């Protein structure tokens, strides 16, 4: 089976499994909305302050709760399921791509859901909204790749759930920085190109690292 075909097949079934499970829509998004709600409750109805901190809070929530999305069952799949795919002849790079794409789709949906809640609760005033069409997928792609690589690293380890978070969050800092600074640039009318480039470069580096490490990580002793 060609790699592209393997990716398509795995992606289709992974997404079907995730959407039916509904973990992102029914658990992560509502949990993130509650977290977004706690800040206005803590600082009070200070509209200028909320407008100012809204984008930063949004991206922090995306990073922290996005980890829950990257930890979804299929990206930290049990050893037996991975073994089955290895014996079936799935290319490790194809599995990396399929898992990353599935997580990417879920993260973009999560970003949109949390974004709507942020607009409703914080009313951030951005000069322009259309650059978000690039910022959201760039950030989601980076986070998805970090999550998949972390899932591959901790696969088969007993402490995998907590380890994924420990690996993902520090590596995701450049993504948080790029996304938050770009959105701040949109709020104050400053240039955002360098921050978008930072996100794009991080994504490219992660893609190369993910593809190159997929096989060694899969074949390493567990």
């Amino acid at each position: 089976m060609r790699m592209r075909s393997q990716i398509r097949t795995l992606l289709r079934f992974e997404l079907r499994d995730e959407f039916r499970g509904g973990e992102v829509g029914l658990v992560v998004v509502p949990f993130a909305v509650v977290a977004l709600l706690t800040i206005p409750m803590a600082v009070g109805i200070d509209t200028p302050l909320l407008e100012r901190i809204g984008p930063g809070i949004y991206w922090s929530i995306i990073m922290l709760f996005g980890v829950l999305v990257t930890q979804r069952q299929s990206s930290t799949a049990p050893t037996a399921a991975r073994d089955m795919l290895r014996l079936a002849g799935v290319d490790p790079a194809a599995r990396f791509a399929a898992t990353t794409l599935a997580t990417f789709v879920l993260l973009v949906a999560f970003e949109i859901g949390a974004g709507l809640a942020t607009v409703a609760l914080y009313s951030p005033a951005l000069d322009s909204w259309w650059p978000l069409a690039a910022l959201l997928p760039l950030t989601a792609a980076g986070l998805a790749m970090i999550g998949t690589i972390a899932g591959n690293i901790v696969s088969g380890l007993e402490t995998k759930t907590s380890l994924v978070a420990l690996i993902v969050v520090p590596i995701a800092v450049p993504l948080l920085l790029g996304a938050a600074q770009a959105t701040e640039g949109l709020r104050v009318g400053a240039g955002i190109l360098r921050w978008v480039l930072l996100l794009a470069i991080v994504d490219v580096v992660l893609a190369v690292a993910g593809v190159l490490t997929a096989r060694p990580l899969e074949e390493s002793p567990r």
Partner: protein
Amino acid sequence: MTSPTVSLRSVAVRKPGALILRSIDLELAPGSATALFGANGSGKTTLLRVVATLLRPSTGTGEVLGAPLGTAAVETVRKRIGLVGHDTTLYPNLTLGENLELAASIVLGRSARTEAHQALEQVGLAAAVDRRAARSSNGMKRRVEFARLLIVAPDLLLLDEAHVGLDPDASKLVEHLITDVTSRGGSALVVAHEEERVKPIVDRTLTLVDGILAGAAS
């Protein structure tokens, strides 16, 4: 002389703080079925994973289906290995039919819904095609794994306590899988605890004690 399906020489597996397998020498002849017994923690599953090419030995050498262990060549023979382990490989929110279709599509390299449904029929799950894996019994999930083996038609069959929790019909299915592989000139290695149940369907038995192949009988 036909070369063995599996040949291990002085294989050891070391994990942090423990030596799981020690100096294992093992040969599986074509057309043979072997049972592997041993207490919990004796290293049976680890040995099965080595034979399945999923775990690289710390020391020692060997070949599986002609591919030297620890080399990239094992990836070319993996499709000829059928493994059913303790844990389910099924996606919980996919139906039994979809789970088998996924595995079959990857193995066959094309959409394989028809083959998946036919295989489920063969293992007595025709009526449960649309049942989600999460809502299925362990026995049903195990049957799906067997259905996968019917599609793969492996030359090397590896079963890790496959008899546990099976009803008589499903047990017959295990026997059928073993007979099918050996009649085609392949080999089967069956890890089990219930000696009385397994002995009649294998050619020889081995016992693992603390990572050492302590006894062998035909």
